[in-house]
Structure formats: C-alpha cells, structure tokens
C-alpha cells in the first residue's frame, strides 16, 4: 500500500528539523520506504510504501510516529507532538441516537455522535490543498472532513444523513446479508449480495450501509443534509475482506479495516471529526457519544532475552538500548534479569512473537550498521540424486554451438495448442482463473509452442529451436507429473536433425542411438540407446518440420561425465568403401546394424553417400593383434556382399576382385 504524505501536514504531528531528503533516506533505511518525493503546490509530498502488516503507519500520524522513533537513531532530534483534541461537550437539545442492534461477533466497536445544523460550507483552502496533494477529490466540507480525518489518523469514518435514518425508523441493525439483496453505493453503483457480507440494515430490513467499505446512497450526505450521524465501526477484518473482494470495492476504508486497524483509534477520530465539523460547518453536538466497545483486547506481552536477540543480530546489544528504541514506538517495557518484557501498543497487532520485537530493535539499530559476513558453518553435501543441472546446461551449450536456438515459451497454452499436442482437451490440467484466453491449459507437449516460434520467425528460412521445460501429465487426486523434456524442432531434413541428435547423445556419453519406427507411416520413431529397451524419446517427421522430444530424466540416468576408455589399438586398419544398390524402402539403419555385426573384424560401418538407390558405406576392418591384410579382409567382404544380397535384396556396384 502506498500513501502520500505532504511534508507540512507531517510536521503538524512531528517536531523535527530534518530536511525532506533526510526524512526520505532515514525512514527508508529503518522504516517505511519513501519511494519518491513529489513536488505539489510547491511543497514536498512523500510517496511512501507501507507494508501490509503496518496498517498503523497508513496515516500522517502513523508516519510521524515512525519518524519520531527513527530520526534520533541518526542523530536528528524528533518528537511526536501530542494530539490535543477536546472532549466532546454535552448538548442541551439532544436528538435521539439510532437504536443500534449490535453483533459483537461481526463488529468489535461502534462509536457515534449526532451533529446538528451542519452548514454545507465549502472545503477551506488549506484542507482542499492537502486533499489535492494526496490526490483526493474535493467536494464540500461535510464530505471532505471524513476523508481528511481518515488520512490523518488512519481510521475510516462515515457520515450518515441522520434525517434519512430517522425517516426509516432510526434503527441500525448490524447483520450479515442474505444472498440476493440489493444495495446502491453512494456513487450510484448497484450490487446484489452473495450472502455473508456484513451490512447495516434499517428497521425495514433495507441495507443502509456497507460498513467499513462504502456508504449507500439511501443514507448518504446530499445537498439537503442538515444533521449528520458521524459513525465509526470496527467490522471483523475477514468479513470486510470477503465483501470488498467479492464486489471489487477496494476503498481505503476497506483496505484499512481488513488489516485489523486498531479500534482504539476510533475515539480520537470521533473527537477530531466533531472538532472539524464544529469549526468548518458550525455544527452542534446533538447527542451523547454512543460507544459500544465490548471485549477490548487485553494487552499481550512478549518476553525476549538478550541471547535471543544476539542469535539474530550476531552480536550482543544491551537490553537497555532495546528499551529506549521500543519506548519510542510506544511499547511498554520492563527488565527482570536477562528477560525483557514488552507490551506493544494496541495499534501494533503485528508484534506477537520475539522475532517481531527483534525486527523492531534491529531496524532502529539500523540494518546498515550490522556487519556483513558469509556463513562459517559446514557446507551441506546432500544433493538430490534425480537432477543434474550441469548436464542440462551442457546439452544447451552443445545444441546452441551446433546451430540450435534456445527459446523459452509459456507453460500455459490455448485450447487449440493443447489439442495440437495430440491429447484430448479433458486430459489437460486447466487453469480455473486464466488471465488471457491464450494461456488456459498446462501443456502436455512443447511441440505446439515451438511450432509457433518457427511460424513467428518464418522469414528466417532454416530454423532450429529447442526448449528444456516441463510438460504436465495429470494424475488422479495428485499433483501432475512434471516431465522435464528437451524438445527440438527444425525446418531442416530428417538426417541432419538425427545427426545433431546423435552427436548430442554422444557428447553426453550416451552411445548407440537406435530409432525404431512406431507407426505404419514411418513418421514417428522411438529413440532408444544401446541395448536398453527404455524409450528415451521420440523423433517425428511432420509435414514441414522434424520434431524431437527427449526425456531429461532418461538422459540424466544414461549419461556419464566421462567415457569408458578403450585401449588404443596399435594395429593398422584397412578402410574401404563399398557401394550397394538397394531396394526402395530398405531400412538402411537396420542394414547398417547388420553389417556392423557381421564379423568381429569389422570395426565400424558408416553411410558415406547416397546417389539415387546407390548407397556407399565406409567400412573399417581391423584386427586387434596383427596387421590386417587383404587376404584377411577378402572373406569378410564377401560375407558382407552376400548378406546384402540375400537378406536385403541389394547388390554390390562393381565386382569383387576374387
């Protein structure tokens, strides 16, 4: 939450010589962050971020209190000025207060007073200027006073048109709304209740206020208003939050109340209100003060030892030093032995446990004054077995080095992209509150997203992209299985992509990649390695592009940081090329495997070139113990030719010499 604090308004509550820049720097270091100083009407206005737990600082007074505690720590004298508010004087001509049907569960305090003969005066210039500085609209004094007080003291207050209340029985019932009731807010917007909102109703059962959120039109101030009921309530924070969020009415009042603003503040707010209505609108107090404040929370105490404090700070700080700081924050303190007992003020519900007190002491001591060192403790060695981030990065580096571009695409996809993955739409996890229609389903495949990247870069000609990311497989009554997938997609041809895949696997010391066609069209192949039956991924030839999907978990399992060294053979090899003419649809991969295994003397067989149906293979023959000769190779060569002719219906181009 941000709040605008004009410097001169702040100084009405704070006695100090600090410059605006000093206030900005020192508040930011030890308290609420002063993000900027804006100039407005020639005066500095602080734009301050207040954290959600510090609703007590959401006011001029609250910031002044912080400044009074912080500035002296930087050597700048500062004091919070007392609030001099007169008691509300009794009246001689009373008007009857409304009959209020309290509900102590829903509402923790109600305080109100009637002000009569309210003059519809213009908002005085000094107040209008300040409201403009804090970017609030200026109406007239009767309305603006409530906004002004809320900003100054940090507690919401509401002015009812008293006569409108009287017209419907002068009764306020604090109840939960049923579903389907309607109300219209003071700015004319109509709502229907969902049930459970805390509302004020009159004796006729009509909603006459959405307390702590927004007034309703049927009881709000208008041009005919003469008498005002100034009322502060303290509706249960969760209830306020529920109604405010449900109807998206996010007023300052709601934001204060849903954060448990201290109901004790309401008395000062009422006194301030009466004072301003008297001064600016010549109003008269026309009733006793009604104040229903049951179950006032007893102050709780927090004990803290100097040892505990040192545990967080890393050094000993005398308890007396802490006491001085805490008392500036209006905490009561006492020391008995090594124990400091702290009683926080009622407006600090955020102070509950010793760590909360430590935070107060540490920030006022100044985080910038605390030394900075790295941990001297033992380095943990227990690493998760299932991940290998080094391998992941190695794969990325290798692919990018051989021409593949890494991309990051969204995990959420549109309905059409989800369907492109080949899974039914109901087999996807769906986001119940998507922000945009193109990101609704958790994807089961990275391919549609990568296809979109290719389309996006259509002007590029040859494009190869990859992504390492999770796919999400739904599981019954459980979290989805997040499958880390390395997906590659390229506009290049199958052999080039497969070559890159094979070299990637080899780089990771995963050898002997085997691809087995899966379907009858031979468009999808299962990727396996070595003798393992485990499928590590798939390769598919689409209409235009080649897709590869690899399971990272399998790569992690099969990879190695190093190869198994094979003794270097000292004997010379004999290398020769053989060209065969092969039949249509011959599975060259299978043929290669068969040729490689035909004889122990064959070290390797590689496909060298393809010309029409002629396939040239480079064959390396080697004997581990002796130099290889033509005489030794001849029978093996013949065996290869026979194999191709008999099992694959191919034939050698040329003739064997003998």
């Amino acid at each position: 939450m941000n709040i605008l604090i004009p410097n001169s308004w702040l100084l009405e509550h704070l006695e100090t010589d600090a410059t605006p820049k000093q206030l900005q720097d020192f508040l930011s270091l030890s308290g609420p962050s002063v993000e900027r100083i804006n100039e407005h009407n020639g005066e500095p206005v602080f734009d301050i971020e207040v954290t959600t737990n510090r609703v007590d600082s959401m006011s001029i007074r609250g910031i002044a209190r912080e400044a009074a505690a912080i500035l002296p720590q930087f050597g700048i004298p500062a004091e919070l000025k007392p609030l001099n508010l007169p008691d509300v004087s009794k009246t001689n001509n009373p008007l009857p207060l409304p009959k209020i049907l309290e509900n102590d569960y829903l509402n923790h305090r109600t305080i109100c007073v009637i002000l009569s003969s309210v003059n519809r005066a213009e908002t005085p210039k000094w107040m209008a200027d300040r409201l403009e500085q804090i970017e609030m609209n200026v109406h007239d004094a009767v309305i603006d006073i409530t906004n002004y007080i809320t900003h100054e003291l940090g507690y919401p207050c509401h002015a009812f048109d008293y006569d409108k209340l009287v017209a419907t029985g002068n009764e306020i019932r604090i109840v939960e709304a049923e579903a389907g009731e309607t109300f219209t807010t003071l700015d004319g917007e109509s709502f229907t209740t969902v049930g459970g909102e805390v509302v004020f109703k009159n004796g006729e059962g009509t909603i006459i206020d959405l307390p702590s959120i927004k007034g309703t039109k049927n009881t709000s101030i208008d041009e005919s208003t003469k008498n005002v009921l100034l009322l502060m309530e303290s509706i249960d924070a969760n209830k306020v939050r529920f109604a405010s969020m449900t109807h998206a009415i996010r007023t300052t009042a709601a934001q204060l109340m849903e954060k448990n603003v201290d109901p004790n503040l309401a008395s000062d707010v009422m006194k301030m209100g009466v004072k301003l209505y008297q001064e600016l609108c010549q109003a008269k107090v026309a009733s006793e003060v009604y104040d229903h404040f049951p179950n006032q929370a007893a102050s709780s105490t927090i004990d803290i030892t100097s040892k505990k404090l040192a545990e967080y700070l890393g050094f000993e700080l005398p308890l007396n030093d802490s006491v001085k700081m805490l008392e500036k924050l209006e905490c009561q303190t006492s020391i008995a032995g090594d124990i400091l007992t702290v009683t926080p003020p009622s407006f600090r519900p955020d102070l509950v446990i010793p760590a909360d007190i430590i935070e107060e002491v540490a920030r006022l001591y100044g985080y910038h004054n605390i030394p900075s060192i790295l941990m001297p403790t033992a380095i943990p060695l227990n690493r998760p077995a299932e991940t290998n981030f080094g391998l992941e990065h190695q794969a990325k580096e290798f692919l990018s080095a051989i021409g593949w571009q890494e991309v990051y695409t969204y995990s959420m996809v549109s309905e059409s992209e989800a369907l492109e993955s080949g899974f039914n739409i109901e087999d996807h996890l769906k986001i119940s509150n998507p922000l945009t229609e193109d990101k609704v389903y958790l994807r089961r495949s990275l391919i549609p997203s990568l296809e979109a990247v290719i389309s996006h870069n259509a002007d590029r000609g040859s494009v190869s992209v990859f992504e390492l990311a999770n796919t999400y497989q739904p599981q019954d009554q459980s979290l989805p299985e997040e499958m880390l997938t390395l997906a590659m997609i390229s506009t290049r041809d199958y052999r080039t992509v497969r070559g890159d895949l094979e070299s990637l696997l080899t780089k990771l010391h995963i050898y002997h990649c085997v691809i087995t066609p899966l379907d009858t069209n031979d468009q999808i192949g299962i990727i396996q390695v070595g003798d393992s039956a485990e499928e590590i991924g798939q390769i598919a030839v689409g209409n235009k592009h080649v897709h590869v999907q690899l399971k990272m978990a399998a790569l992690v399992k099969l990879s190695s940081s190093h190869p198994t060294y094979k003794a270097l053979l000292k004997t010379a090899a004999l290398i020769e090329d053989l060209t065969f003419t092969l039949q249509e649809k011959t599975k060259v991969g299978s043929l290669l495997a068969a040729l490689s295994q035909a004889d122990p003397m064959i070290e390797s067989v590689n496909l060298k070139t393809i010309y029409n149906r002629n396939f040239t293979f480079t064959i390396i023959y080697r004997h581990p113990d002796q130099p290889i000769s033509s005489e030794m190779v001849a029978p093996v060569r013949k065996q290869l030719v026979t194999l191709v002719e008999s099992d694959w219906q191919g034939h050698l181009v040329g003739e064997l010499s003998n």
Partner: protein
Amino acid sequence: MIISSFLEELAKIEEQLSKQANSSRDDLEKMFLSSNGLFTLISKQITELDPNDRKTAGRSLNQLKTAIEAALAASTSTNAKDKRWIDLTMPGEQPTVGHIHPISQAMAEITGIFERVGFTRVRYPEVDWDWYAFESLNMSPSHPARDEWETFFVDQKADLEKGQVVLTPHTSNGQVREMERLGEPQIRMINIARCYRRQQDVTHTQMFHQFEGLVVDKGINIQHLKGTLDYFAEQFYGPGTKNRIRPFHFQFTEPSFEVDFSCHICSGTGEITKDGRVEKCRFCKSGWHEVGGCGMVHPNVLKAGGIDPDVYTGFAFGWGIERTYTLKKGLEIDDIRLLYSGDFKFLEQF
C-alpha cells in the same frame, strides 16, 4: 630387383621425409615428387619387381605417398617467389550457431555464484499444493498478504490436507520441501524455477523465473544474510555495486527485508541530466532498484518443515531472474515480454 631391397629403399626415403619437418612445400615437392624426385624414381622401379611382389610394393608405395601428401599439407609456402595472395579484408565464413537463452545464461551464472559458496541447486514442483505455496509459509487461506501473489489455480479437486493445486507464484514452495528432503539442517539451497502470477505488462509476464535461497543451521543470523547478498551483488553486478536492505514485510520471514541495488542509469542519484535539465530518473526509485525480498525464516515456517526454531535459525531470499538480470549494466532490456517472444531478432543478440 628383389622386393626386400625395394622396401629397404622405401624405408630410407621415408626416413628422409621424416627429417624434412621444417621444409617448405616447394622444397618437399622438388625433393620427392619432381621428375627426378625420390618418390618418382622409386615408383618407376616397381616394374622391375616380380609380379607376385608388386601388390605388396604398391601398398607400401601408397603409404609413402600418403605420408608425403600429409607432409605437404602441413608445410608452409615460404618461397617468396610463389607466395599466393590472400585478401585479409575478406569477411570470414561463420558457422551457423544458436544461442543459449538469456534466462538460461542468467540461471547458469547465478547457480555458479551460489555453488561456489556451498549452495546446492534443487528443483521442486511448479504446480504445487497450496500448503507448500502458502499455508506452510505462515499464510492462511484468507490472509490479505496473498493478494500480492496473484495466483493461478488449477481446476482440480482440493486435497483435504494440502489444499488447492496452484501454479507456484514464487519459488518459496521449495523451502518446506527442502526441509522435508533433508530432515534436518544444514541447509544451503538454491531453487530456480518457473513461477506464475496473474499479471502482464512491460515489467511483468504471466510466467517468470525466481531464484530462492534458503540457509538453515545453528547460529545463522542477519550478518550472514547481508554477507550473502553483498557477495552475490559483487559477483553478479561487478565490484563496487552498492546494495542495501530495508525493513519490509513477508509472512514467511521475520524480520523481513527488501533488497535494493544502486541504479546504474543515474548512478544511484535518482536524477539524470537531459538537455541541460535535471530530471528524475524514471528507471528507479530515488537511485535504487528494488530487486526482491529476503529475511530471517519465520519460526512457523521452520516448524512446518519439522525444524526446531529454538535450535536453528535461517534466512531466505527470493528474487525474479528477469528483474535481477535486466538490471545488469548496459543490458537495457525495456520490455521483459521479449524474453518469451521467441523472436530471433532478440534472441540472436545473446
């Protein structure tokens, strides 16, 4: 001529070849391949051999020729008279290379920085139970603090104990999971993952990345948190980078801090001079960039992870990778949505 003397002759030539390592290409050609070169002369003698020996001789001759060719290839053309002209101003032929995505580059750098001081990188679910994402982090289902984590929910039946399924809005779900994995401290975790929030503008994307640090042990205090932040800032942004921690609030840390780094655009002054006029720097807040949050682990979080807060203390931090990375001096990415656009014009710059 008999085969043995032929082979002996060949061996001599081979030996001579081996001594010519520093000879120029021209000299080598003259010595071995010219009309009266050693290789030319010996190869003519093959006809004088017994036909049965010619095959062996031919193979040996071939080996010699291969060796001569290799020597030629390795030699330099030092004879000035025949030096071929090379246009050194010609552009090079570059191989096609891809690029590692900037987020991956940042992740690798961040991982390295923390691993050097003993952190272990981990991975936890991106789609997780409400318990890990919020409730175990001291945030009950109705807590207003949850507003700041504009959370995506998965349309799936809630678990009675662990609550709804959410897309993790931060990497802090790894905190209690890491405590559970290890059973007891020591913990020095760095958790980097995709995160998701319902927001989208020039500085926010529905999907982004965070890195989360968690340290739990006996005697861990604010000094160690500051030390770790200072170390990271120096390593990631370079020596002399100023940073500060300020009071902040998170439900899962107490005390909580916001971490700022000095703005490199305005050198931490909050003002820039443009056309002779002094203006407020629009990239930062008064000279500082908020990078992310951190704090001492809340006792309730330690308890949720089965760790005794009376014995152990810890600190945690969680920052956006995009935010942290784009503050690198001179990078000047002004729209982080580009990171997820898949646009080659952008990606090829990295």
